């Protein structure tokens, strides 16, 4: 991915295999060339707020949606979510929480912090493909972003 300002989907995922499967799901719908993977919460925040290695990125061109795994090393998914939702600049950026289990006690906390939706990663690969590509299509094509 050369142009960081053209990224439409930011995937925050520490498991490279889950990331690869997600990209494959999105590729089937020609969405894969606008994806960027952040491997932990700190990198995700640097990307969104144009800091550190991403200081040359244009802050005015945020991704259209963030797929956020809640279980992350360093800075947790909930902390990333909180940073995004408490800054007036990034508050309206859609965040979809991706979790392995619907038993997750963090689901409730994530909704309190203002997450836009959540998706449980199915074990069954066909279901996984459907879940990821539908979510990507919905937020990129169907959802009308909030006008600033």
């Amino acid at each position, binding site marked *: 991915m050369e142009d960081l300002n053209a990224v439409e989907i930011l995937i925050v995922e520490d498991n490279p295999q889950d990331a690869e499967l997600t990209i494959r799901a999105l590729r089937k719908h020609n969405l894969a060339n606008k994806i960027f993977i952040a491997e932990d919460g700190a990198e995700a925040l640097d990307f969104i707020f144009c800091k550190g290695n991403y200081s040359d990125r244009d802050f005015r061109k945020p991704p259209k949606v963030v797929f956020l795994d809640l279980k992350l090393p360093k800075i947790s998914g909930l902390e990333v979510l909180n940073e995004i939702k408490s800054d007036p600049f990034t508050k309206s950026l859609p965040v979809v929480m991706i979790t392995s289990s619907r038993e997750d006690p963090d689901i409730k906390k994530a909704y309190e912090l203002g997450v836009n939706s959540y998706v449980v990663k*199915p074990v069954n690969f066909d279901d996984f493909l459907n879940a990821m590509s539908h979510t990507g299509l919905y937020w990129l094509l169907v959802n009308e972003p909030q006008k600033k």
Partner: protein
Amino acid sequence: MKANSAISYMILDLLKNIISMADNPGELGKYITAKIREVVVCKFVILFFHNNNYQEISHELLGISPEQKKNDINVKVWHEIAEASHEFHGPTLFQHKKNGTRIEQLLFQLGGKDSIIIPLEFTNQRVGLLAVIDIFDTHNLQSIIDSLDAISGVLAIELRNSSVMQNLEILVATRTKQLSDSEKRFRTIIEQATDAMYLSDLEGNIIDTNQQACKSLGYTREELLKLKFTDLDARFDSTEKMQGLLKKMVPNKNFTFESVHRHKTGNTFPVEISMSLIDLDGSNVVIGFVRDISERKESEQKIIRMGQHYQALIEKAPDGIVLISAEGSFKFVSPAARKMFGYTNNEEITGNPSEYTHPEDLPEVLAVLQELIHDPSQIPTITYRFIDRSGKWRWIESTFSNLLADPSVEAIVINFRDITDRKLTEEEISKLNEELEQKVIERTNELEKRSRELLDNEAALLNLVEDLNLKSDELQRSKSQLEIANRELEAFSYSVSHDLRAPLRAISGFVSILLEDYEQVLDAEGKRICNIVYSNAIKMGQLIDDLLSFSRLIRSELHHSRIDMEGLVKSVISDFETTHRLTQENIIIQKLLKAVGDSNLIKQVWINLISNAIKYSSKNENAQITIGSYSNQNELVYYVKDNGVGFDMEYVHKLFGVFQRLHNMNEFEGTGVGLAIVQRIINRHQGRVWAEGEVGKGASFYFTLPGNSH
């Protein structure tokens, strides 16, 4: 980026809005910081107000954007930055430096990379500070600096204006308070005065007065302000008399005299008036302080009457009074005293009082008298014996006063009463007391003995209580251990579902990719193996989900309600009809008794039992399932019977275990959790489960629920 036009627009916008906010610096700060951050795009924008009133310089935080960060900022750091900014003028850019100047270090601490500090000055005087911290857009720093410089002038004027306004308001408020305080103080003094106060003009019209005046005359303040001084005073009750009085007065000099005032009811009372002529706001007025002297007058009258009463008092007093002269002889013996000792009024009592005193008591009496003569301020009281006319000793209690120096008395005054009867009673009481004390000692000993016995018992009881406390502590510990175990279990299930599912997802995902992308390379056997890997991964996922729902059952609370079993079972069967080919001949529902329980969980029991029955009878062409219930003593018994493959009663004890299966996968699919869930739910309802079966003939599953619902 069109920074210049965006910021030009901001300047116009700011000019339009901030002028109306001059009298509200807080709102101004909030507005400006948010607006600047919106256009410049950075981590923080902060506005300080530089206050140098009363020679004391302080920095007041006027606004910060984003506002949520307000609590994050370290006030000390900001104030240090504000202090340090005095070293430079005009907008200054600071760039990422760990070991730079003090201000660079401070900005680095805040996470700022490219930051601009703009001191706000009005006619060379510092009025505030604008700080734009960590600008994201580093390509347009110069145009941002220029634009911020352009608005800093307007901002400085606004801050200056608001500071001047603020200072003026504070000054006005302070002065107003001083004036009103002094007026309040004066009014309080006047109102608290115990004298009535009147202020009147030279015609006698009352201009002002106080609470005491209203109280002593019975008028309200409003009524008094309509009256003239001549209406109140019985001596100066005409204007002419008052004019005469005023002629005698010299300005600013007190004139005191006695007069008589009239109460609203018409009653008059004597007063002392202290009057002055004073100059109030350029006109002469009369101020009068009036004191009610009724009591003083009355006291004077009393003293005159007292002398007359005195004689009568002594004559009529029930106590005896005797006056002894300086020489030690009887000077006066009151009628009561004579009567006490058996003398008539006319009989003369001769000799010296010490001759009448009991010889045993005499030394004490003489000693007291000696001391009294030495120190006349004492009024000693002693009891002693005195002989009466018949020669009997009478006990008397006497109080001595030395009035030898008083020219109207010149005597030792002895005031006494006969206490002979009381003395006898006292002796008797003291005898009784002695007896009583003896009894008390005996009883006390007895009580002490009893108390010792009780203490022994109590110690035994305390030991028992201590044992109980220990037991209770143990229980408490067990309980908290249980709570910890429960929490650990919850964390465990969460981690099981998370961490076990991730590798399964990878297995199923990558095997699918293999099948999709390498379809040409793989032969039939290769594809078969891939499919086996895939289906096992899916099955493992199913196992994890079942295990989790089983552990959820253990933890969740029961919500009891009355259950319509027939309705419940029919709804379960109608759900199955869509997925299995069932007919009414296949399933017979007999009478089902109503029960009390958690309807969601009981529904799960029926789902598991009926789906098992359908599954294990699916190979019988004439499959038949019977569902029914009956009442047995205090229990309600429900059952599901089928004519399917059945099971060997030898393995019946394994039926309800988790992951226990009596059939292999090729025969019938399943994870082996269904019956374990049934048992768990029914046990939690205080019921029982059991099964009967025979290989090839079918199986019957029974469960019970408490039968108190009838």
